[in-house]
């Protein structure tokens, strides 16, 4: 059963200047690698506001940002907020099909998208020339400052909104966590700023705390170490577990005393990976646990509680029937809310876990539903399965996680793997698509006709 939740009111845009632009004009905010100081960023944001307004953005309206990580993204995000608008963040890897569906639902007044991107392959930050186009003449669907989409079926609980006050509270939470980068230091930023870790833990915290944000020149171990070495100030590498492997397999060509720590969010990291990283670099490997809905929930930035984490200041975590619940005063879901996900100030994480009654430390033990993590990005297998099942030529499909997204597909006629690939590529972002696709004449079913999901049975059906 779904019920209407109270829609939050939009907040005065003054919070952007108060919280994010409060430092000295000469403070370097970003190194791309050319330094971008606060005065320059402020000027770029002001100019972008004029373009957004000219294209139709009004206070209380929304701007959809379909931009890869770039200065353009940062500028248009801050400009949207400073204009009193809501930012709808669309991962640039989403297909036209996925984006069209989101735009129809969220009715932004303007859409910001690249007309040209450049800079080369495997770039962490790209050069973007953007265009702002009008889309709909309607107010935003809610008073949230930011809207993020979580992988899922088309259920109403998957559009996640966060208010300006909530974002500011999370930034404040970061300032009280022992082990985060401090004013004057640097964050070597690897996660996408469209998603919560890179957005709040990187961009917003960095702007607020006067921490320089440094995306490496490209995605590779050598480039990350070069970014650390480029300045003498202490550097924290922020990433997801995949990035640990890149660094663990890269030998520095000089001592890096400024390398302070690496912190990752996302899935659990195997002990062997931790060992390989610390053996090579001799710095702490910190761990964070968070969700799009609430941001950072807990941390172990010194690597001293692994795999457990300590709840972040102001966050309460409790265990209910083996599931972790997080204190969350208002439903983060836009419009209709499913009480199975949020009720009475508590958010159900769908993560299995325990809370130590003495120390309060939280141990996450894995998902209770069909959500998996691919390079730190959340993918709901039900979305992949529903998309596959809806394709022409597919009679039935089962999608599992078998050290990677794995699909078993029963065609209802002639259907090649390549044809299936092409159809999927039009509908699902690359990170959501199966790494392994098995075409089988007949999917295994129970005696009552339900599809069998046991990995052993499926592997036997498609040897």
């Amino acid at each position, binding site marked *: 059963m779904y019920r209407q939740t109270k829609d939050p009111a939009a907040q005065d845009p003054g919070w952007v200047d108060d919280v994010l632009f409060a430092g000295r004009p000469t403070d370097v905010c970003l190194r791309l690698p050319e330094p971008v100081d606060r005065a320059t960023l402020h000027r770029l944001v002001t100019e972008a506001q004029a373009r957004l307004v000219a294209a139709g953005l009004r206070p209380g309206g929304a701007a959809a940002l379909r931009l890869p990580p770039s200065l353009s993204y940062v500028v248009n995000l801050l400009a949207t907020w400073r204009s009193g608008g809501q930012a709808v963040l669309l991962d640039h890897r989403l297909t036209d099909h996925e984006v069209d569906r989101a735009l129809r639902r969220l009715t932004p007044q303007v859409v910001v998208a690249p007309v040209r991107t450049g800079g080369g*392959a*495997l770039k962490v930050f790209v050069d973007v020339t953007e265009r702002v186009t009008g889309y709909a003449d309607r107010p935003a669907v809610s008073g949230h400052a930011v809207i993020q989409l979580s992988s899922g079926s088309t259920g109403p609980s998957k559009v996640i909104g966060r208010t300006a006050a909530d974002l500011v509270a999370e930034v404040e939470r970061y300032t009280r966590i022992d082990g985060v980068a401090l004013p004057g230091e640097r964050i070597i930023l690897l996660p996408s700023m469209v998603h919560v870790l890179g957005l709040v833990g990187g961009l917003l915290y960095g702007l607020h705390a006067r921490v320089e944000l440094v995306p490496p020149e490209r*995605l590779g171990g050598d480039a990350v170490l070069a970014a650390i070495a480029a300045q003498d100030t202490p550097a924290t590498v922020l990433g997801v577990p995949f990035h640990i492997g*890149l660094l663990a397999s890269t030998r520095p060509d000089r001592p890096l005393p400024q390398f302070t720590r690496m912190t990752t969010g996302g899935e659990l990291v195997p002990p062997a990976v931790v060992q390989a990283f610390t053996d090579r670099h001799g710095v702490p490997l910190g761990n964070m646990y968070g969700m799009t809905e609430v941001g950072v929930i807990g941390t172990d930035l010194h690597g001293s509680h692994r795999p457990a984490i300590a709840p972040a200041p102001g966050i309460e975590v409790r265990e209910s029937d083996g599931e972790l619940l997080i204190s969350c005063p208002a439903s983060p879901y836009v419009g209709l809310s499913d009480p199975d996900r949020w009720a009475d100030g508590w958010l159900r994480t769908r993560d299995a876990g325990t809370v130590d009654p003495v120390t309060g430390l939280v141990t996450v033990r894995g998902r209770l539903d069909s959500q998996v993590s*691919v390079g730190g990005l959340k993918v709901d297998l039900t979305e992949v399965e529903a998309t596959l099942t809806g394709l022409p030529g597919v009679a039935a499909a089962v999608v599992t996680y078998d*050290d990677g997204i794995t699909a078993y597909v029963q065609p209802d006629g002639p259907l090649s793997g390549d044809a299936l690939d092409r159809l999927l590529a039009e509908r699902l972002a690359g*990170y959501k698509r199966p*790494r*392994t696709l098995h075409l089988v004449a007949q999917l295994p079913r129970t005696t009552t006709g339900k599809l069998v999901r046991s990995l052993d049975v499926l592997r036997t059906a498609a040897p």
Partner: protein
Amino acid sequence: MSGQPDLGRADLVSMLAELTGKPVEQVPHRVGSMELAWLVHLVEQRYGTQMDLTDDQLAGIRTVDDALTVFHTCLPASADG
């Protein structure tokens, strides 16, 4: 043999096995952007060089075999080739 770098399909598969923790015979032949970044990283380490890949080249890589073909165009030929 001449003109081919000293890099074979088996090398790429074993690099992916290292990433995924799977036995080589279970490594999927499809690669996504994360697997591709990993392969580029390890191949560049092995040859001590940066491959001059374009966005279009990377976008066209969907399988281990595609990756091998593209990498061969960017790497020096083997010394005994």
